[in-house]
């Protein structure tokens, strides 16, 4: 009797999540349908017009897709030189030491900081620096948003990478040392090939985090609806345009914003799926 009850509860609880997820997708698709029907799916994806003029409304997602992909890729680029050394420090060079555990705790702490705090820091500290260095006159823009995003995703990339680096079997490393390999050679020829796909997957998950980040990006990207022409120009990401405009949007504009949400959902889902697949491969090998 008890066992049956337990199983029923378990079953219901487990089933709820896919149902909720399915419901979200269903709602996104039905609400986005108007926009896709009005503009056509591919035209919506490739149009750079975002014009509110009543009667001649034109909405296209290209500026925001570019904004999102650009900030995410730049954030990834900026994050690698910091997260990879941390991963090797914690997972290999000072494995198990006190310093390593302090470093990994501090890095993980970064993940717990709310994004509004990152936004404020970017706005009041980083932005004036960008202006003073004459990188861009207004300070906001793709570059500023990417730099802060990079710091935000460091813990995601570093912690997981460190785990995969730790998992490299000692036998392998020791046999390399016994053949006269230096530490650098071990890292290059043993750890990288073995933990490579694991490290790669941790970066994929970090990307997933950067793609959807809203608050920080909205505060720093400049919120203009043009395709960014350089990394210092202002723009809008998919998440930030939704945050900026859903409040008063209705009709076609609301539908277009939801369509952007759907596209963001799909991009994030695909990227996370790739990450999961790579982790699986890493575990098997």
């Amino acid at each position, binding site marked *: 009797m008890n066992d049956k009850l337990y199983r029923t509860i378990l079953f219901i609880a487990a089933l709820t999540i896919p149902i909720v997820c399915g*419901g*979200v997708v269903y*709602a996104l698709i039905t*609400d986005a349908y108007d926009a896709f029907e009005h503009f056509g799916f591919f035209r919506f994806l490739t149009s750079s017009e*975002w*014009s*509110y*003029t*009543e009667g001649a409304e034109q909405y296209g997602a290209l500026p925001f897709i570019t904004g999102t992909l650009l900030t995410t890729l730049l954030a990834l680029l900026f994050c690698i030189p910091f997260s990879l050394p941390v991963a090797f420090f914690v997972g290999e060079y000072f494995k198990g030491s006190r310093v390593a555990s302090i470093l990994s705790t501090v890095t993980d702490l970064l993940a717990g900081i709310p994004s509004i705090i990152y936004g404020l820091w970017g*706005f*009041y500290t980083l*932005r*004036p620096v960008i*202006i003073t260095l004459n990188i861009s*006159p*207004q*300070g*906001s*823009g793709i570059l500023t948003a990417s730099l802060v995003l990079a710091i935000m995703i460091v813990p995601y990339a570093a912690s997981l990478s460190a785990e995969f680096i730790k998992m490299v079997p000692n036998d392998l490393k020791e046999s390399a040392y016994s053949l006269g390999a230096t530490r650098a050679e071990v890292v290059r020829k043993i750890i990288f090939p073995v933990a490579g796909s694991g490290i790669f997957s941790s970066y994929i998950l970090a990307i997933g985090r950067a793609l959807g980040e809203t608050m920080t990006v*909205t505060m720093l990207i*400049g*919120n*203009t*609806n043009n395709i960014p022409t350089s990394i210092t120009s*202002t723009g*809008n990401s998919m998440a930030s345009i939704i*945050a*900026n*405009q*859903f*409040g*008063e*949007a*209705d009709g076609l504009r*609301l539908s277009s*914003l*939801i369509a952007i949400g759907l596209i963001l959902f799909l991009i994030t889902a695909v990227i996370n799926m790739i990450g999961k697949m790579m982790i699986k491969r890493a575990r098997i090998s």
Partner: protein
Amino acid sequence: MTLVLVLAVASCGGSGTSNGERKAQELSGAGATFPLPFYNVVFDQFSGVNGDAVAYGGIGSGGGIRNLRDKIVDFAGTDAFLSDKEMEEMAPVIHIPTCMGAVVLAYNLDGVESLNLSGEVIADIFAGAIKTWNDPRLTALNPDVNLPAGAIIPVFRSDGSGTTFVFTDYLTKVSPMWASNYGTGKSVNFPTGQAAKGNPGVAGIISQTKNSIGYIGSEYAFAQKIPYAKIMNQRGELVEPTSTTISASASGEIPADTRTSITNADAEGAYPISCFTWMVIYKEQNYSDRSREQAIATLDLMKYILSDEAQDVTSKVHYAPLPAKAKELSMKNLKTVTYNGMAILKD
């Protein structure tokens, strides 16, 4: 799943501090951030009258109207009156002007303490045609000011906004170039510069960014101590936004439903980017299970805002009191409000 900011609509009485007529109510409204500093004071005072609590979400004029259309608020605040088309799409509503205000051109320029601007110059700055602060057209207006050579960074609103509506309404009136390229609206495609959410957002960007200029509600410029420009009105006078110069803009005729734009007013001493800000309520107050008491409380709030006690607050928080004509028309309009088809206010 519709993305709606659900503001709790209280359907029953609150603390029960009754004055014998009715129980204290909880009213909810949403909309314009522009008059928010004024509303904060007035709502606080209003709660002292009958214990009614008012929750007002500063989510922008566009959002407020949408919440009213979704019938989840008692009133909406807006700086842009509803267009005829918008009025047709919803059940009958009335506009109650609550105060007058100014949209100021706030700037951040090292060592510049006073700046003169004209409508056409503002339009060209926001259209990107005037790119630097030492442009001859700016130096001509400011002969005594040493303007820097830096690039101008226009700052505008990223969300739908009544402030944007008032500002672009003004630009449309004074600049044919603006009228044909960008027009008037709560959201307009500004070609250059950067954007932020809400009046506070724009004010924040301006105060943090050298060589920037943006349009905000006057109170936000005062609060953050950002300087703002004198603007040349139709009579060719350079006018600073004050209670007096804002009031001067409303000396003309006001239509019966009070839906009127007073930007670029042809009056002596008038600040040209002045505006009314309104609360919009349904003519028929029985919707979404609202009680009769709640409807009465809503009207009490409107009456209170039109009273001298509330109007006296306006100039203290850098807005301007309503002209007598607007109050008179509004009282008349309030009498048309019904509950189940029966007028709520008696003559």
